[in-house]
């Protein structure tokens, strides 16, 4: 039972364009959502998060959007750069449970 789903295993985007990575969840109790980036042979690095009281959070080139009614969140990267090429995981948690539920990841490739 996959509570957090990333239905696109891979995405290819040209440098300078927008990258949009999507994530769907099934558990309406989730109230904190995160995006991690992972390069090969390294651990995941925290990128950006959003709590359920917001519908948007922005940090430089990265913006996360949350649509609670659709149980959907997305990560926008503008403009995309070759260094953004990595696997991106979305994750969700329920307040005070300490556990994160991860999606299966989307491999982003940004080409020149």
């Amino acid at each position, binding site marked *: 039972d996959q509570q957090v789903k*990333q239905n696109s*295993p891979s995405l290819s985007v040209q440098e300078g364009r927008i990258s949009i990575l999507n994530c769907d969840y099934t558990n309406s109790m989730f109230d*904190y959502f*995160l995006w*991690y980036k992972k390069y090969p*042979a*390294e*651990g*995941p*690095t*925290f990128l950006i*998060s959003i*709590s359920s009281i917001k519908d948007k959070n922005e940090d430089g080139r990265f913006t996360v959007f949350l649509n609670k009614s659709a149980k959907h969140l997305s990560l926008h990267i503008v403009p995309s750069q070759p260094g953004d090429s990595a696997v991106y*995981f979305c*994750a969700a*948690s329920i*307040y*005070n*449970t*300490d*556990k*994160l539920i*991860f*999606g*299966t*990841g989307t491999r982003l490739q940004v080409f020149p």
Partner: protein
Amino acid sequence: DVKVTQSSRYLVKRTGEKVFLECVQDMDHENMFWYRQDPGLGLRLIYFSYDVKMKEKGDIPEGYSVSREKKERFSLILESASTNQTSMYLCASSPPTDTYQPQHFGDGTRLSIL
């Protein structure tokens, strides 16, 4: 900066061996976690600990145990290694969730069981 250090980047063991994976964090975090990452399956939680000597099973605890004798150190133990435990193992730490802080990960241990 939070530093989570895993003792080995690569490890090769034989079937039936007892394997220890060590993780140390330097931020005095209460929570520590062990995950494994497999292609197409994302990160799956094996065990976590929210205090010294406390542990809880994650989603896939079978074949594993853990030890947390000191706050900064969390060990994952493969009691009798099997080939299906070949994977990337990731350790993470975080403050309590009521602070809405992310988990911070080590660089992982790629374990091969032959």
